[in-house]
């Protein structure tokens, strides 16, 4: 069986040489950068806004129990049914239970990374229910039976030609290379689904603890339709999504839009506070909120990396990451890709299986700088490396460092080692990168620095003699 690390390496090797892929990503993210910089510049003080957002999330996460209890009591007071799930399996069972009880025929879903996390669509389909993704990008990747490529731009890796071919094959539409026509094909197909769907499923961007509301950010209007038409509405929400006060949205909505998509604010930011209330003319008869832990409390228990739970899933760290921009979203093999995915996946799915993601990083810090809630991402990558080595190091690596420290702490021995190294280094080029090279993982794709013929110490001594 292939390990996660060998899958990652194989996929990365292949895709970094794919010029077509590279071109698509550069174009898409290039456009994003221009828009994002324009929107950041419109803020009077973007850095102060970031700091305030980080502090609001700090408050929410570091008093998570109180905020969750407030959220839940407010939601329940207006007739929302709240469910708690420690694991993905529990969350799937809760949702399957609701869907079965309602004898649902078709389910319409708006974008939810939590649902990707617990493989909800698979579970629903295996139990015989039709579930349709309504976000255009998600709909496209669902038709291709793929995972989303990016948290915010799920179909960023596809050209309009590929999407047209897909729609021809799956929907029987006429070929077109016009993005607007392609969008209208999806709009028409999905409108039919909306009118007939009996269950709607959404994710959530923020949960206002104080007032008991789920805030959903979107551009297309699909989440609004999902929240308006089906008789039963289910929101699958990670427990870390809470924010303390309603007014905090005045900060988070523009920040999320700016960092995530280079918009001042997204098209629709809707707050759901319950099922249809007396005197209201539409909306679901039943509203269920499923609170998902799925490893989050484990991350919470690590104070050093707890701020990774501040994440608002804007995708800004992916967009600026030199690794993401080279290997793309699917290579990671995780629900959350890019720097934030590399930080949290080891906590959610096991450090030893996923530690390689923390090493697939240049530690350049672009992610930390881009994060609108100031998560210390690149240091967390380093901490994951440290934790992985401390937990289960590799004997050869440990031995190498032991020898190294033995030598460098003994000046006489170090001097000899340098001389020997300098003499024999030319021979290395004959084995560089081959099976005989013990350092081939490093040297196969890199130049090896030349040892200097003269050390600084020797140079200094001679200089003073003159």
């Amino acid at each position, binding site marked *: 069986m292939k390990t996660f690390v060998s899958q990652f390496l194989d996929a990365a090797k292949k895709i970094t040489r794919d010029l077509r892929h590279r071109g698509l990503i550069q174009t898409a993210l290039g456009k994003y950068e221009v828009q994002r910089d324009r929107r950041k510049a419109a803020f009077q003080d973007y850095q102060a806004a970031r700091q305030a957002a980080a502090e609001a999330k*700090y408050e929410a996460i570091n008093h998570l129990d109180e905020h969750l209890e407030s959220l839940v009591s407010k939601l329940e007071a207006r007739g929302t049914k709240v469910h708690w799930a420690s694991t993905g399996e529990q969350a799937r069972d809760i949702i399957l239970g609701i869907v079965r009880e309602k004898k649902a025929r078709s389910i319409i879903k708006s974008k939810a990374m939590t649902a990707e996390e617990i493989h909800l669509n698979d579970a629903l389909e295996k139990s015989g229910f039709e579930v349709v993704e*309504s976000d255009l990008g998600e709909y496209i990747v669902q038709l291709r039976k793929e995972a989303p490529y990016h948290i915010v731009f*799920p179909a960023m890796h596809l050209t309009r030609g590929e999407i047209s071919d897909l729609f021809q094959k799956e929907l029987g539409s006429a070929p077109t290379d016009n993005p607007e026509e392609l969008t209208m094909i999806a709009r028409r197909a999905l409108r039919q689904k909306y009118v007939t769907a009996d269950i709607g499923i959404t994710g959530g961007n923020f949960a206002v603890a104080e007032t008991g509301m789920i805030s959903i950010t979107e551009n297309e209007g699909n989440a609004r339709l999902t929240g308006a038409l089906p008789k039963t509405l289910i929101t699958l929400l990670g427990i870390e999504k809470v924010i303390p006060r309603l007014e905090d949205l005045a*900060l988070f909505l523009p920040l999320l839009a700016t960092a995530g998509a280079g918009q001042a604010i997204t098209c629709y930011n809707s707050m759901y506070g319950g099922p249809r209330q007396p005197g209201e003319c539409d909306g679901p008869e039943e509203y269920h909120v499923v609170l998902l832990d799925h490893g989050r409390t484990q991350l919470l228990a690590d104070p050093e990396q707890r701020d990774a739970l501040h994440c608002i899933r804007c995708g800004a760290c992916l967009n600026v990451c030199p690794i993401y921009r080279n290997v793309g979203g699917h290579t990671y093999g995780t629900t959350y890709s890019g720097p934030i995915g590399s930080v949290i996946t080891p906590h959610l799915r096991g450090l030893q299986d996923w530690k390689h993601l923390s090493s697939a990083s240049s530690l350049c810090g672009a992610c930390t700088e881009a994060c609108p809630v100031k998560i210390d991402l690149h240091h967390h990558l380093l901490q994951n490396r440290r934790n992985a080595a401390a937990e289960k190091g590799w004997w050869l690596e440990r031995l190498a460092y032991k020898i190294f420290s033995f030598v460098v702490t003994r000046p006489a021995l170090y001097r000899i080692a340098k001389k020997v190294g300098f003499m024999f280094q030319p021979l290395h080029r004959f084995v560089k990168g081959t099976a005989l090279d013990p350092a081939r993982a490093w040297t196969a794709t890199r130049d090896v620095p030349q040892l200097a013929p003269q050390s600084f110490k020797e140079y200094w001594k001679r200089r003073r003699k003159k």
Partner: protein
Amino acid sequence: MSEREKILGRIREALRLSAPRPGEHGDHAGHDHMPARKLSAPADLRRWLPSVGDTFEQRVAAFAAQSTDLRTEFHLLDSRDAALAKLKEVAQANGWTRIASHRTELTDAACAALALPTLVTDGGYAAPDLERCDAGLTACDALIAQTGSVLITTRSAGGRGLSVLPPHHVVLARREQLLPDLPAAFAFLREKYGANYPSFMSVITGPSRTGDIERILVLGAHGPKKLTVLCY
């Protein structure tokens, strides 16, 4: 023990160690006390978010500039009659034959002026009927100059579906409804509804859009392809 208790128990256990405050990484991990709470006030927010002027004219200018950017059709009119006349113009230009609306004094007057077959959402409606309407005509809670947004709730705008299902959303607003910025909008919601919030509230900013195909902007992804704001 219920899952609720188990999850809350794990959270409380985890929070026995405190985390470094934002911007103070490296030194303070693992302290066993919780630092004092510190949250920003809306007044601070105003100094950081994009600026909006203090006068009505500056707010209108900001709303108009955002509208151009977002492709919202925004018209500032001198009187209610002028707004209704503009509405008729919009109806003719777009060839509406059937509209949907909800009952308020203002929207009733607008529907009477248009004299088109009208679906009224108050008291319930069938989704396919609303889907067949050419436009949804609504009032609103407020306009937000900073972002060029329309603030609606189920109570002010005829439910959840009326402003999103028809292909054209037309909003009628009075001048005094124009608020400067997002902090003002959320303060307004709290003041108006704090005791009993509607089950649905939304900040609408421009017509429905997507960039999911090669990051090229397309209007009318799932919601309205057009958004018209008539303010008098």
